[in-house]
């Protein structure tokens, strides 16, 4: 009786120890995460915490992917609490970098200042905030800003529920709406440009901080409409399609030359100055981000920076270091 008890204990203990050991040393083919030279390139360690916009997140994720090839010992994490949510953690000193799809607001800047957080704003890429519909939607291919305001404005809540209310030539179908949630910079930007005031929007739509949900929603419903960053549209070609706004379709060219308006916008990363100066891995990551912005934007299907923007960004960085 004693022997079998001992056997059970021993085997369970072995399994647990084995699992922990595996996790501790086994599974890392490229370099270690403890101090020591990594097998590929640099030997930096430590973490870079980023949070914020789900529009910008794929860009930062692509940067993290490429960065890992150079510095495999650095732990980059990308959370997506939305631009507003990201600023809250940023101004509390919890993150090193804040991803933002709109500029920092005055209240947020004040919070940062009150907490003693100094930061630098860097334009990381461009975006054409796109309005999307289902690929089988053949009636709403070009919408004016007024029509968008009609669909999305606060007065539309409960009232504008059918496509033919937008334009009598549209079919008699109920509209389902998907879009960014209130913590999202995309939300702030869209409401400001289309409805005239930041935060002014009807509330009877499907809000989410995760733009993938918007894609899923529009892709699954013929009469759905949504709004999100252009990179998501490019990633999901054929699954959803973009709508021309005032006659202009969003694309790299129209965003860079400014014809896609008012929804063309820059995308930002905000860097905590203290993190940049004190933490070598953060400096390395940000330098890499800016220096390789074209490659990163291409990998993540974003609209890259114009030449002027690249120069500005590099100058900003130089002033930091």
């Amino acid at each position, binding site marked *: *009786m*004693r022997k*079998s*008890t001992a056997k*059970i*204990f021993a085997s*369970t203990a072995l399994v*647990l120890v084995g*699992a*922990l050991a*595996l*996790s*501790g040393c086994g*599974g*890392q*083919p490229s370099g270690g*995460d403890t101090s020591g030279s990594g097998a590929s390139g640099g030997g930096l360690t430590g*973490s870079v*915490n980023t949070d914020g916009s789900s529009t910008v*997140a*794929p860009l930062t*994720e*692509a940067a*993290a*992917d490429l960065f*890992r090839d150079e510095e495999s010992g*650095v*732990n*980059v*994490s*990308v*959370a*997506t609490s939305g631009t507003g949510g990201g600023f809250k*953690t940023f101004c*509390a000193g*919890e993150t090193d970098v804040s991803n933002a799809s709109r500029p920092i607001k005055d209240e947020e800047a004040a919070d940062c200042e009150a907490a003693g957080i100094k930061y630098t704003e860097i334009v990381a890429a461009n975006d054409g905030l796109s309005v999307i519909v289902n690929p089988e939607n053949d009636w709403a291919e070009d919408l004016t800003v007024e029509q968008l305001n009609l669909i999305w404005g606060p007065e539309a809540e409960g009232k504008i529920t059918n496509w033919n209310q937008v334009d009598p030539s549209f079919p008699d179908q109920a509209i389902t709406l998907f879009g960014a949630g209130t913590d999202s910079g995309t939300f702030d930007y869209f409401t400001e440009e289309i409805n005239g005031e930041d935060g002014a929007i009807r509330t009877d739509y499907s809000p989410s901080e*995760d733009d*993938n*949900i918007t*894609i*899923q929603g529009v*892709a699954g419903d013929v009469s759905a409409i949504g709004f999100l960053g252009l990179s998501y549209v490019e*990633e*999901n070609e054929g*699954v*959803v399609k973009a709508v021309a706004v005032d006659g202009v379709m969003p694309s790299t060219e129209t965003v860079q030359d400014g014809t896609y308006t008012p929804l063309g916008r820059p995308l930002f990363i905000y860097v905590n100055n203290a993190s940049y100066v004190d933490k070598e891995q953060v400096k390395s990551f940000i330098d890499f981000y800016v220096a390789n912005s074209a490659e990163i934007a291409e*990998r*993540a299907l974003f609209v890259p920076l114009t030449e002027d923007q690249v120069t500005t960004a590099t100058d900003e960085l130089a002033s930091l270091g």
Partner: protein
Amino acid sequence: MSPTSTTATQPLRASAPIATGRNGEMRPSALAFLLLLWLSLFVAFAVLITLLITIFLTGQNKLSTALLFNFPSADPDEAGARPAILGSVWAIGATAVMTLPLGIAAAVHLEEFADRKRWFNRFIELNVQNLAAVPSIVYGLLALAFLSMLGVTNKNIVIGGAFALTLLILPVIIIATREALRAVPREIRDGSLALGATQWQTTWRQVLPASVPGIATGSILALSRALGEAAPLLVLGALVYITFDPNGLLSGYTTLPIQIFNWTGRPQEGFHELAGATSILLLAVLILMNALAIFIRNKFQKRW
């Protein structure tokens, strides 16, 4: 028409169906009823099989070592679940270390030492039953509040998730351990006490060793449940894109179910395939754990 059943002594449980004569059983209504019953069982299994087949069909393309060893990526062809796998190991490991001693100790107290007539102990029993049925997301809220109270700002740490999971499966472990303890006959305890042992010595040297298989089975099943949990960890910020291996109790992490949740929410087909493949992986691990539990029960369970 008198029934021709010849059942003599019947145990209390319905171990053998009672035959009541062929005529009664062959009536169309009785047959239809039986058919309906088999149908309901059949439907349940049919859905289960459909689920397993669809998961397998969706995920089979992505079942490869890349899934095990790669980090998440924006490109579905390159993405893997490595941080999630290690995160799960860390989270479940930490949970086991915290919950097993606590749950077994509590069960031993309730079963062996507590005076069951006192209202306080009955209250604890009722309480445990209640806790077993609280929605799992509430445990996430509890852990969130606890971490906030401690002043911890970054909620995405392994120990936070382990804390939520520990409390979540604690009632399950207590209930299972009590069942195992109850299965040990009184004679064992009485004999030990008759030889002059104290109650603790009896418990520690006779009752507990005898109930180890039952406890082990219950614990493994409870831990497998914790492995599949996602809701409390969502609240604790485990949905995060990380490019590193979770490597400590205070490390950032994500887990297999959260990774599945992440990939399910993405529109690209490639990510759905990854979600399917990770589901297969998770199911395989769960099957292994359950098989281990059943094996322990069958091999080591004592027949008194």
